[in-house]
């Protein structure tokens, strides 16, 4: 597609057997890089994005023309310092930013895959991204970093490739998607599917997108990324450009207007089917499943040094779930640090200007990097 003409991608030739049983090959995986790879290839960091993120983590996203999603954390002189590290930001398969996804054309039908696209998992995503290491000839990554679904990919990556990352920073995530989070994702999916334009996922043929459904899914999800306190402080009961209630269903309140706006801008940059597929991958994520419920076993072969970070007001991936990962690592004597950062910005804290969080990442990386130099 032409809108992805500036997108870097590798074509993965090797067959990849997906968890659903299907095998894919010759598929595109989009990525972006920041900084320079050093001579001994020891300064590479692989970062993973969250549900609606993409490979354009820093600078200006060439497709949306907006700031990259991790501008606060990633860039020259920032916590993940691209003057020092070579950062590869990997896109996920199932997405809609240039990697193999449901809006790609199915060579058999010459039409978009739609819901004929195979269901993918976090494991599949990470196995696909692993090809980037081979592409850049990186024997060992200095670090793997990601928040939310990106954090799940960090955990999966270390579990799948125990000796490929020196350090790992999973942020605001979980090792096993909770019932509440599956429920919230299902709410979003049902909202998309209830849009008459969705047409069982084959909407691209009609040239009409299920924008309303996708916008509502985003609005609902957006609430879960914030905190009650943060919302109250920012919006309270403030009215939207009016002196009094209108006794109608207009957006009387600023919070309503804000959510509607968030929904409307989201549909311009995100594909509804990708939203279904990626939320499904999150719901299927349970790193303990393969190990009889014992999370420690997922990390037994790894010597990766972990630093886990959670946020006080994050109720979507609460501290308790992040701490479970810490406990699992400590139980097998692995090297792990853990900090719960005070913030009223909810789950989104990891994307925002939260100095204690950014400092924590910066100091951990600096110290770990000094130890290898």
């Amino acid at each position, binding site marked *: 597609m032409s809108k992805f003409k500036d997108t870097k991608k590798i074509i993965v030739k090797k067959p990849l057997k997906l968890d659903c049983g299907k095998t894919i090959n010759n598929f595109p995986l989009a990525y972006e890089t920041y900084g320079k790879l050093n001579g001994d290839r020891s300064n590479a960091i692989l970062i993973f994005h969250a549900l609606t993120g993409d490979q354009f983590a820093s600078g200006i996203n060439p497709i949306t023309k907006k700031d990259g999603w991790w501008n606060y954390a990633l860039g020259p002189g920032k916590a993940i310092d691209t003057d020092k590290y070579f950062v590869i930001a990997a896109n996920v398969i199932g997405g809609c930013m240039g990697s193999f996804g449901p809006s790609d054309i199915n060579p058999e039908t010459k039409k978009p895959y739609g819901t004929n696209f195979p269901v993918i998992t976090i494991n599949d995503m990470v196995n696909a991204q692993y090809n980037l290491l081979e592409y850049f000839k990186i024997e060992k990554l200095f670090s793997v970093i990601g928040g939310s679904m990106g954090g799940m990919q960090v955990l999966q990556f270390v579990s799948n490739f125990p000796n490929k990352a020196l350090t790992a920073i999973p942020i605001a995530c979980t090792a096993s998607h909770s019932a509440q989070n599956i429920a919230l994702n299902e709410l979003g999916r049902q909202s998309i599917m209830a849009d008459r334009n969705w047409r069982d996922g084959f909407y691209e043929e009609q040239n009409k997108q299920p924008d309303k459904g996708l916008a509502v899914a985003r609005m609902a999800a957006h609430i879960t990324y914030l905190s009650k306190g943060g919302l109250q402080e920012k919006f309270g009961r403030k009215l939207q450009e009016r002196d009094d209630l209108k006794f109608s269903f207009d957006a009387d309140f600023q919070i309503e207007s804000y959510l509607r706006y968030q929904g409307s801008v989201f549909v311009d940059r995100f594909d509804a089917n990708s939203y279904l597929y990626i939320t499904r991958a999150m719901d299927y994520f349970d790193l303990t499943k393969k190990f009889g419920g014992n999370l420690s076993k997922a990390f037994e072969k790894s010597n990766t*040094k972990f630093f886990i970070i959670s946020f006080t007001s994050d109720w979507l991936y609460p501290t308790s779930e992040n*701490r479970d990962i810490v406990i699992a690592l*400590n139980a097998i004597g692995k*090297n792990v640090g853990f*900090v719960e950062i005070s913030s009223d910005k909810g789950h989104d804290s990891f994307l925002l200007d939260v100095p204690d969080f950014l*400092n924590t990442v910066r*100091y*951990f990386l600096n110290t770990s990097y000094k130890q290898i130099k």
Partner: protein
Amino acid sequence: MKKEFYNIAKLVTQNSKVLDVGCGNGELMKYITENISTDIRGIELSKSNVQKCVEKGLTVIEGNAEKDLKQFPDSSFDFVILSQTLQAFLDPENVLNELLRIGKKAIVSIPNFGHWKVRLHLLLKGTMPVTENLPNEWYNTPNLHMCTIKDFENYCKNRNIKINLKNLKYHNFFSELGIFVLEK
């Protein structure tokens, strides 16, 4: 750095695996990292102290020693350090048992309530002693379970805890602080 920390650090073997329980702002951990062993981490309850450890580039686990030591397997550290906080726990006996379970050796320091200044203070003034090592008043002290060096020695004897080495060139009457290396 506090003299106590030098004395504790001296007891730690080179390149051993160390856990500093209640590591505060990380001062002792930093000294051990730079001079004795880099395989060290700490547990700390206070968020501001955790940030200070992070700034020093130390591996710190934010948590509560009273609840969180149980996650570590038996004998997973060569040394577990507990500096001057035993008396502040709700259940010091449990903490001590956990230290001896997860550490091959535990280094424990306690402020000595049997020091002559403390005794004299109570005898002459009739008020709760306030000294350099016990700077708080009765109403705001974090110390719930004060003991003397003699009390602690008796306790270890009763529980078959081996006191491997101690700094008691002095004794219960003259030392403001007791530093013990314990083994089960």
